[in-house]
């Protein structure tokens, strides 16, 4: 397995708060990572740092062996795609237009979307089960539908590495599972990688194989999900007592 993203001694701080210190992370293709932690612990800030949207205090980040801060934005966008926590639509267009923005890094300045780009966008819309919404205005969508459009836009970008900031935000239970299920299947088939910020520990256990736990004191823990996620680490992570139930070898965590 090749190393897609690697950090060396990465320290990230924001407004005097330490988010992580000396983080050594190796993200290999085919893996799927969950980032877990309390509100305000800095999960999003770390994810944005990994996407080269902000610079770290110290340490390096390498994307496919190259210093990510020396790559141009377009080169990064062809490899790494980010799903933001929230969406902003100052001058909203149609669903199709919004999904097609994902093709931007693959096109030059004078180019218009080709039939192939449109086919990719249609496929992405089918993935999130919104094919019939292509010509609708973004403004007519519900929160969950808008979220699925954003995911379609990211799929349209066809990155090797997906950075997902709370991908299940606004999604109902059915779509939480359908989309994460389809996504992990696609990642497996195409040997792609995802790092996702999650609030639901059980979803993380089900769809991710690795986890990064960010504790409130600035320390962290890295490892396979079933090794680092247990009721003790979770109780410390969320500063709330947790207990676990077992059913057919599957461990489920609930607040105690």
């Amino acid at each position: 397995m090749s190393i897609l993203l690697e950090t060396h001694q990465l320290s990230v701080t924001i407004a005097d708060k330490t988010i992580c210190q000396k983080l050594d992370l190796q993200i290999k293709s085919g893996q799927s990572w969950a980032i877990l932690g309390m509100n305000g612990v800095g999960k999003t800030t770390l994810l944005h740092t990994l996407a080269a949207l902000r610079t770290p205090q110290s340490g390096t980040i390498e994307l496919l062996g190259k210093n990510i801060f020396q790559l141009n934005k377009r080169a990064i966008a062809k490899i790494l795609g980010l799903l933001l926590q929230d969406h902003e639509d100052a001058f909203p267009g149609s669903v199709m237009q919004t999904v097609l923005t994902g093709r931007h890094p693959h096109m030059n300045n004078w180019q218009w979307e080709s039939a192939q780009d449109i086919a990719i966008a249609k496929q992405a819309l089918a993935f999130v089960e919104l094919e019939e919404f292509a010509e609708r205005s973004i403004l007519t969508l519900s929160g969950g539908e808008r979220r699925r459009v954003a995911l379609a836009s990211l799929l349209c970008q066809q990155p090797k590495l997906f950075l997902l900031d709370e991908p299940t935000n606004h999604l109902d239970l059915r779509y939480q599972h359908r989309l994460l299920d389809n996504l992990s299947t696609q990642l497996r088939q195409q040997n792609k990688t995802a790092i996702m910020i999650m609030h639901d520990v059980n979803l993380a256990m089900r769809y991710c194989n690795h986890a990064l736990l960010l504790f409130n004191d600035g320390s962290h823990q890295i490892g396979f999900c079933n090794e680092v996620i247990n009721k003790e680490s979770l109780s410390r992570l969320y500063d709330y007592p947790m207990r676990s139930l077992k059913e057919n070898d599957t461990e489920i965590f609930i607040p105690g």
Partner: protein
Amino acid sequence: MNTRAISLLLILTLTTGASLLLALYSGSIDISWQEIISSFYTDQKNMKQQLVQELRLPRALGAFIAGGLLALAGALLQVLLRNPLADPYVLGISGGAAVGALLAILVGAGGLVISGSAFIGAFCSMLLVFGIAHGQGSWTPTRLLLTGIILAAGWGAVINFILVISPDQTLRSMLFWLMGDLGYVQSTTPGFIVLIFGLLISLPIARSLNILAQGELQATSLGIETRRLRIIVYLLASMLTATAVTMAGSIGFVGLVVPHLIRMMGFSDNRILLPAAILFGGSLLILADTLARTVIAPQQLPVGVISAVIGVPLFLFLLYRGQIQRL
């Protein structure tokens, strides 16, 4: 580009041509179509043909250029500031230009000096806003917008001061300048060059602008160097506005409303919106100016008055018809 977009651009091009012809035909002296057409190729022009070539044509072209510049600048600034209320004057550029122009009028200078002075005022204002908003490194739309609005308010106070201390005989031309008047157009060539330059710069960045409207982070994560893009858009929009106000004073309304009119017709893609705004803004201003010089002839009205009289009902009608959710 789909067929809807092509038909929009085609219709707007035809509208522009038709308004140009109307502008050449309308006026206090009746000139036949035959004479108008022949004025373009005869060497020995009679008085009427000279009137067409030397007065009506430059004025109509000036109106088109000023309208195109303002509409393009408005569309660019709305995306840059991610604010539907932005117009070419929101960042105080016209205020700086007005102070320059009014000072020139006050000392009794002629047309060319007024234009030059207006341009210098606009340029100073642009540098001031850019420098102050950019000062600490972070450059959010809100910060830029607030800096511009405050500076515009400052210019407004200076303008009022100049108006109060000015003698009565200069007041009228000052007011005309402030309301926007194409009687000041000196030469259409520089404006035309700036307009073409603006179009050529904005077309290749138009797709990036679509994404910039989705926010800074989203744009960066899709591979756009947002800092560079925003500086380009700011400088370009400032230059377009400065050129327009230098040519014709502060013609209001076109820059705010034309981009929205096109969005309300369902075209929010900047690759179509920006060229369409030039054609729409240009033809709107040709029509407005034609009315301004004929409606109570021989008395002339400032074109800014007429552009609002045409634009306000048109805008309200489209808004009322239920396309409001697109805004």
